[in-house]
């Protein structure tokens, strides 16, 4: 009889590309919120013509990827167009403008630039809702949420639906 077989062992390779893209996941949540805002906010008539422009300042690759998924959709009869601005100077007519936290230093400049327009300004920095943003992303109970400033919306002639008001984590009259 031959000697006992040479025993081979189970190979264990932690080879699976381990962790999915967390930046992408969080960006997707924000974009889902933004898409909801397009349905729950009413813009003045002159913003119903041409494309529905969503501007963003210095979007991260993850955010830009997620925003671009909206170009497959329409708002009423308007096509979604995504514009990624590098500075406040570049900003032109937008239905929505989002300033990510990393570009919040441009807030004052952007507010000045948007003065007199009906652009829905969205930010994500503590206190921005009181500095001119209509909607400010916040984190509440480990979740993405938002605060809504009624007065800022009215200044821009934006009509906020009652359902959006109730969904806001903070509603500032």
């Amino acid at each position, binding site marked *: *009889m031959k000697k006992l*077989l040479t*025993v081979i*062992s189970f190979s*264990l390779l*932690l080879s699976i590309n*381990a962790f*999915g893209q967390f930046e992408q996941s969080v960006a997707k949540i924000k974009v889902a919120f933004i*898409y909801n805002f397009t349905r729950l906010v009413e813009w003045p008539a002159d913003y119903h013509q041409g494309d529905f422009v969503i501007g963003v300042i210095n979007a991260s690759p993850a955010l830009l990827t997620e925003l671009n998924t909206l170009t497959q959709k329409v708002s009423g009869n308007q096509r979604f167009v995504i514009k990624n601005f590098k500075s406040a100077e570049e900003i032109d007519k937008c239905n929505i403008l989002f300033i990510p936290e990393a570009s919040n230093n441009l807030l004052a400049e952007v507010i000045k630039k948007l003065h007199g327009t009906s652009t829905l300004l969205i930010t994500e920095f503590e206190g921005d809702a009181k500095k001119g943003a209509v909607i400010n992303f916040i984190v509440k109970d480990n979740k993405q949420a938002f605060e809504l400033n009624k007065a800022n919306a009215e200044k821009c002639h934006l009509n906020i639906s009652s359902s959006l008001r109730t969904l806001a984590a903070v509603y500032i009259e």
Partner: protein
Amino acid sequence: MKNIRYILFFVLLLGGFIARGQNDNLAKAYNCMQKGNADSARIYIDKAMSDPSVRKDAQTWYLRGFVYKELYKKYESDDIRSELRDTSVHDLFISYRIDSSHENKETTFPTLKYLAATYYNDAASNMDSVHFHVAMFAYNKHKAIMRRISTDNFNKLDIQFYDALGEIYSGYFFSAPLFEVKKKYLDSAHKAYDKVLAINPDDFSANYGLGRLYYNQAVNIITNLPVDAAIPEVNKAQDTCAHLARLSLPYLDKAHKLEPLKIEPVKGLEGDYYMLHDSEKFEVNKDLEEKLRQQQSPKK
């Protein structure tokens, strides 16, 4: 030494057959085996087995088990479900059971150990994403034999086996396109890792594997969330993800403590904290990941 043992055993075996005046077929089977002709030996030993008196003899069962083992090696060593091997195992166990003095143990057990090792090797060589069901079958066969002939515990082997199995199921979970299919593999991976942790709560692979599963489950939920989902639906998905990230954290944390120089658990912790919007802890882990990468990058 082993060869001498087997020669002696066969001499005794033949002596036994002759002394007991047992049928010719046994002697012929024995002679065939001595000449290395297992095929003919099989014919004679099978014929001999039709005699009820022969079936009560432990040495006859041993001889048949030995013949079938040789035939398995000759014809079916690549066949996971080899009937020749199964028959050999079966016969050797009968031989051991009816041999009240267990005088055959010295020869029966090494042969059974050999066959158990072939099952183990079949399990190990099939432990991949395509053949893992075969691996499970073979591994269980290996254990079934070894449990009867040895007092060794299987903890070390079980850990290796179920870690590998968990990894395979995790791979399927990550790549499966449909939620229902993902769920099935997720559950299977979970069960495999749980088995490991029940044996050793400090097993790195199982802790890491479970942490990664919970984490990727959360990512998967968001990935599959339609971009036009209503806000309450988005919030519900966020609640689920936060829950999963919290479940993931202790496993990844432990994996990190067990293997502090490994980057992947830290990367996972980073992701969990990012999903939980805990920017402070996210940054701590991001910095740690960066440090580890610098330490491990080849020095110029």
